[in-house]
């Protein structure tokens, strides 16, 4: 048996369509079988509600008098991209305020507009013969704009890695707070309710398909940026009118130590055309597997700790190395449900019809990493190889002499085998001399916890490490823990200021 899209839409318009949510579908299929479920169910609604950083909106403000060709625009002090002719801008969700930093950003501007709050526009221009005006400041409501079109380049991820932190420091990430030493696991996505989890082959989801977006009706533009369906990480580019949206389904967020994001409620109604579409919608959380990766490694390719199902993630605990680790979701399951239910009511009421893609999404695509023609400098290139060291048995007096002569503030301390065992600074030495005279040995005053770098790490990693530990130099060690150089914050600072010169 098969059903046509026209048949289903006819039923929807007549108010006779049978609509269920993707959460209800697995049990229906178990009970009635695939054929039975196909006969019974016309539409399955999906939903997700989570942080979708890659979101934003095109805004058209109309012309001022005298007219201005706005070159740079700030909305409530958040810069919007204005390189698209005179009176348009794109406000991106993650752009941060110039005055409030990560507490307020593009996502908040969008939420404020949709909530009916007034925003302030400031813009500047160099002035031209046709657009003489150079500055403008005005207050605007959403209704004052000619168009306010949300266009989100990358939403509705098909699946998303869960994350853990095996380092010894708490990390603040876009996946929330990650406690040290695998203290918790963070994940995102609605599992069996997620739109793409119910159509992994992109038979029903593609360009031109209507969707529920931020409380209003939108449309799928097509393949999202970074989309990689061939390995299960497909994404969608979606669009919708901000005027139709509702702040219940668009919520600005601010992640400590990371920045701003926009929580978007998004749902797709899937027509049940044949047994394959039914099968796909029978997916359960137990079947949806993702990887738990270690964010303690600050590189692109992060180690996978284990794989896990959404059922386990949602249970609140996942076992890692024989220990139960608590989980946190970044997306909201109760709100994802609300999206699926709201969409179900819209279809049942006959006000939301379904459509097939006008253009299919390429399911063979795999996104690749950035091509880098210039490698970021490695520690080896900027470290000082002429490092002065001291052995642990030498006296504090010798240390003082070495510090003076070497014109350095840090002395890595080594043992007889040449291995790093500690570090002393000018401060440690002066303190010791003042309090105890110069009778002590280096090993008695050194700090044994030394933060180090290895020669092949990128310099950016060293910069983060210096900042986190609030220190000004890092001994560089090889795999045997022999000191082969020292990296000074000053040298690093010089490098970064040079790198960012336009």
């Amino acid at each position, binding site marked *: 048996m098969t059903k046509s899209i026209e048949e289903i839409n006819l039923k929807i318009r007549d108010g006779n369509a049978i609509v269920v949510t993707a959460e209800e579908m697995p049990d229906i299929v178990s009970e009635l079988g695939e054929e039975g479920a196909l006969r019974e169910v016309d539409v399955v609604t999906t939903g997700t*509600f*989570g*942080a979708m950083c890659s979101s934003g909106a095109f805004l058209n403000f109309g012309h001022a008098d005298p007219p201005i060709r706005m070159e740079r625009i700030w909305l409530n002090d958040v810069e919007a991209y204005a390189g698209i002719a005179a009176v348009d801008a794109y406000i991106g969700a993650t752009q941060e305020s110039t005055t409030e930093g990560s507490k307020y950003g593009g996502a908040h501007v969008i939420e404020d507009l949709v909530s009916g709050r007034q925003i302030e526009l400031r813009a500047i221009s160099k002035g031209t013969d046709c657009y003489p005006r150079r500055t403008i400041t005005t207050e605007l409501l959403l209704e004052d704009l000619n168009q306010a079109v949300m266009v989100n380049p990358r939403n509705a991820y098909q699946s998303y890695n869960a994350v853990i932190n095996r380092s010894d420091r708490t990390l*603040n990430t876009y996946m*929330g*707070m990650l*406690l040290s030493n695998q*203290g*918790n*696991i*963070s994940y995102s996505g609605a599992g069996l309710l997620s739109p793409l989890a119910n159509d992994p082959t992109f038979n029903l989801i593609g360009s031109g398909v209507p969707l529920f977006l931020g409380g209003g009706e939108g449309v799928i533009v097509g393949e999202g940026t970074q989309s990689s369906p061939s390995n299960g990480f497909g994404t969608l580019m979606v669009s919708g009118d901000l005027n139709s949206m509702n702040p219940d389904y668009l*919520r600005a*967020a*601010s*992640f*400590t*130590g990371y920045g701003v*994001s926009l*929580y978007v409620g998004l749902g797709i109604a899937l027509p049940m055309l044949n047994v394959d579409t039914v099968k796909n919608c029978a997916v359960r959380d137990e079947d949806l597997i993702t990887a738990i990766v270690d964010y303690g490694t600050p590189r692109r390719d992060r180690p996978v700790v284990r794989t896990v199902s959404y059922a386990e993630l949602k249970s*609140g605990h996942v076992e890692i190395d024989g220990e139960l*680790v*608590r*989980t*946190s*979701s*970044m*997306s*909201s*399951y*109760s*709100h994802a*449900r609300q999206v699926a239910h709201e969409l179900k009511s819209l279809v049942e009421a006959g006000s939301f019809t379904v459509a097939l893609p006008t253009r299919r999404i390429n399911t063979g695509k795999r996104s690749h990493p950035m091509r880098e023609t210039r490698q970021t400098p490695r520690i080896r290139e900027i470290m000082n190889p002429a490092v002065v060291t001291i052995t642990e048995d030498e006296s504090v007096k010798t240390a003082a002499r070495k510090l003076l002569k070497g014109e350095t503030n840090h002395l890595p301390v080594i043992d007889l085998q040449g291995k790093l065992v500690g570090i002393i600074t000018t401060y440690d030495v002066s303190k010791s001399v003042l309090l105890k005279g110069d009778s002590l040995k280096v090993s008695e005053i050194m700090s044994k916890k030394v933060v180090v770098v290895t020669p092949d790490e990128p310099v950016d990693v060293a910069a983060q490490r210096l900042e986190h530990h609030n220190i000004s130099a890092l001994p560089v060690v090889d795999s045997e823990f022999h000191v082969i150089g020292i990296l000074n914050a000053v040298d690093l600072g010089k490098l970064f200021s040079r790198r960012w010169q336009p």
Partner: protein
Amino acid sequence: MKLFLTIQRDVLKRPLISQVVLETGVMINVERAHIDSNEGWVLIDVPENEEARISSRLTELGVQVKKLENAVVHDEHECVECGACLSICPQEVFSFDQEFHLVIKEERCILCGQCVCACPHQALSIRQ
């Protein structure tokens, strides 16, 4: 039940809590403490039915005692029930019910403040 004790400099040196434990025979759990040269505060947990006895004895000894209620404040309008707070709270104050709605057992809170910065929607704060 949690009690927030503020201790002034003049009484700070005395082993007050041990004294009250010995006198009353009630087990007191010290959950957090902060003491500097001028003043100190201690967060203790005592059995509900012994609260009155402990409080009055501590007050006699010159300690300012405040019952800790509704310590962590939750803004329902801002909260989206994501669950970011669930795994980072050392006291397991937050959990989900069967329907994935947030449940808060605020009586367990020890005011560590971790959830305040972990909530992406700024829905949590600590009552001073």
